[in-house]
């Protein structure tokens, strides 16, 4: 836990959010506020995972819902059909992420698919899964999705208290942040950034670009799939449009980019800015003006992209080399 000795605004933000989580666990906040905090942590978690492959390594994915869907459907289907606890479901979700990395990442990285072409292949892969989930509706419940039965059994990670879920996602997020920070104190962190900056120059200094890209995608995918499993556990309901959609992929990416995908705290910052604002707008105006939230979201993105092209964390905390 060396990084606890660190100082600086990004570190204080991290401490502040943990304080927010602890206070929400102690105080009895309204259910809905709690829900928004959980959702914000969930997006923080997913966007931080996305940043590993897309922010640090520079391989922009617009198909991360692929991993979310893999994780959430793996967990949900095992519970729904075989009554297997999500605790084991998470392990299967991790396996699914590994498998998807083999199917999507390995061939494209081996063939040297780069830049926009990699982005399009992730996007296409996620769309394929989306339509597969709809097509195999006898198993997946199609567009209507799957409603899972609630038994209130803690062994199945079903709790009456919303706060338990907050604790769960907050721990997941903390674990992820610690691992991401550890990566940046090791050689692999330097290598990922080198690949982002210039692949050919990276090869020239002896970096096996293929190997490190696969590692980054694997790590990112595993975290994201666990995030998908959490979605199933929390909502007890999944559908293609909630976990496999293009919109989710975009949301994960924009959240990270708005906050700053090259900094460890950036994606989290983005999540805690965008999620509450969007939730508020949706509740306040959504029923009357269905498209207004999206318009506001669009304006928010344009505004932030203009004032801080490398994300809010760079803008607010003053830019410095991620590797120092």
């Amino acid at each position, binding site marked *: 836990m060396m990084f606890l000795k660190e100082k600086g605004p990004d570190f204080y933000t991290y401490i502040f959010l943990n304080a927010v989580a602890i206070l929400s666990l102690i105080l009895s906040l309204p259910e809905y506020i709690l829900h928004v905090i959980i959702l914000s942590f969930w997006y923080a978690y997913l966007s931080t995972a996305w940043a590993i492959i897309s922010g640090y390594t520079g391989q922009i994915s617009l198909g991360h819902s692929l991993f979310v869907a893999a994780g959430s459907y793996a967990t949900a289907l095992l519970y729904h059909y075989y009554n297997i606890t999500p605790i084991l479901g998470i392990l299967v979700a991790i396996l699914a992420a590994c498998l998807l990395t083999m199917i999507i990442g390995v061939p494209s990285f081996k063939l040297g698919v780069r830049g926009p072409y990699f982005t399009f292949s992730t996007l296409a892969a996620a769309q394929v899964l989306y339509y597969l989930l709809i097509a195999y509706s006898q198993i997946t419940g199609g567009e209507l999705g799957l409603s899972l039965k609630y038994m209130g059994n803690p062994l199945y990670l079903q709790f009456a208290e919303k706060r338990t879920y907050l604790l769960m996602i907050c721990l997941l997020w903390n674990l992820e942040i610690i691992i991401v920070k550890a990566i940046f104190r090791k*050689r692999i962190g330097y290598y990922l*950034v*080198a690949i982002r900056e210039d692949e*050919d120059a990276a*090869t*020239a*200094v*002896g970096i096996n670009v293929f190997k490190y890209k696969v590692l980054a995608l694997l790590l990112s995918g595993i975290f994201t799939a666990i995030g998908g499993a959490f979605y199933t556990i929390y909502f007890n309901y999944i559908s293609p449009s909630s976990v496999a959609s293009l919109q989710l992929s975009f949301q994960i990416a924009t959240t990270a980019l708005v906050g700053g995908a090259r900094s460890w705290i950036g994606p989290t910052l983005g999540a805690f800015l965008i999620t509450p604002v969007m939730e508020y707008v949706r509740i306040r105006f959504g029923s009357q003006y269905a498209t207004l939230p999206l318009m506001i979201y669009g304006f928010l993105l344009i505004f932030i992209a203009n004032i801080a092209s490398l994300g809010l964390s760079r803008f607010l905390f003053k830019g410095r*080399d991620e590797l120092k």
Partner: protein
Amino acid sequence: MTFREPVLEVKNVCKFFGGIKALDDISLSLFDGELVGVIGPNGSGKTTLINVITGYIKPDKGSVICMGKDITGLPPHEAVSMGIVRTFQITRPFKELSVLSNVMLSVLFRERNVEKAREIALNILKWFNLEDKKDLMCKDLNIPDQKKIEFARALALDPKILLMDEVLAGLHIEDAKRILDIIRKLREERKITILIVEHRVKLLAEIVDRMIAMNAGRIIAEGSSSDVLNNPEVIKVYLGEGYK
């Protein structure tokens, strides 16, 4: 000076780009600890030769042997692990990273520990008188400093064989001499085998053991620098009659 056995052999290498013969049946050997200069007009295949040796380009024919091992077509990062390191004619630093991070990235290849790598990188920067600029981004450096960084990064990889593609191009005479001093010092201290592609023939002649002249993908002269520079064909295609 006598040299034992070749550390690097290029055997009958051919490389075609469409109808153009970039390398036409090239064979050469580098001996342990030797410093060889390669000269020749633009387009004569000098950089292609480096590209083939370091794995950036696969030859159409022929082979590259390093210390008895066939390394033809091995990817660049594996060539680096064999100790074969190159610099680029147009420098290729990580532009948005600091000078220190740039050198560290090379050091990390042999030294996994980040803190130790930082120490080593700082030492290398001192060699080049660049320690004051360690926190600057590489894109903010002037050309001579970028050239130095390119060289420093190659050294940080701890090469056995170093292939340098026009390190002196565009450098002021003082900077060029400083780079040459470093090359001399390197040979004495680390016994690295070096191949330098260079247009600044007079500077090159001061430090090399042997010189090779290329034209149109072929070797046209080989030997001591005075022999090569007095070779009539070299004068005709490259140096020009007014060279003397």
